[in-house]
């Protein structure tokens, strides 16, 4: 079984766990295959781990655990890009920049990652609503 390494821990995954990112991530067009790793000690955070560069891992969080009414409408092009139906439930994740000083930790609410678990496809989109910040302080987002 193939494995990935996150923060010194080696974890195995299966072919069926691989999420296709046909467009890569913004600025990282070569990252086409990802796995999502849940670890109970860091929930609600999850790791989005690219298989195309084993040195990398993105820490993410479902933005709706921070802001219940976050981006209630996904951009219209997203489902076409994911090749999924209107009924498919999409998992939404935002990238977290964690710093040793918690007050300086931020979350990118402007460009969420959307994943169709049924299609096992994902992408990163940029929301038109520019009131969502790229570097929203994590604790402020949580308190809002």
């Amino acid at each position, binding site marked *: 079984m193939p494995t990935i390494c996150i923060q010194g821990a080696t974890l195995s995954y299966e072919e069926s766990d691989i999420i296709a990112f046909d467009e890569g991530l913004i600025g990282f067009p070569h990252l086409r295959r990802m796995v999502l790793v849940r670890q109970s000690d860091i929930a*609600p*955070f999850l790791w989005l781990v690219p298989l195309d560069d084993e040195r990398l891992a993105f820490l993410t969080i479902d933005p709706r655990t921070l802001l219940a009414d976050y981006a209630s409408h996904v951009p219209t092009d997203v489902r076409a*890009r994911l090749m999924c139906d209107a009924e498919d439930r999409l998992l939404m994740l935002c990238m977290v920049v964690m*710093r040793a000083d918690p007050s300086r930790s931020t979350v990118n609410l*402007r460009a969420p990652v959307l994943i169709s678990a049924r299609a096992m496809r994902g992408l990163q989109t*940029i929301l038109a609503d520019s009131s969502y910040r790229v570097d929203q302080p*994590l604790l402020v987002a949580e308190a809002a």
Partner: protein
Amino acid sequence: MLVLSRKSGEKLIIGNEIVVEVLAINGDVVKLGITAPRATSVHRFEVFAEIEAANRAALASCELEREVIERMATRLKHRRSTP
């Protein structure tokens, strides 16, 4: 880089489907109209560059000590359970 000169009202096509039209030119501002398939995202480059930089910054999180992430996770979980 391909360099083309276009007048107001003229167009160019990228691939078979993406059409860019110069709608108006006012001083140093060029207004463009872009027709592209729905699955093609179009953004101002500055926004794209900002997200790219943010993604790059996010990669540093996995170099952090586990405890820092665990502490924040606990803090978020705790806050959520207290209304």
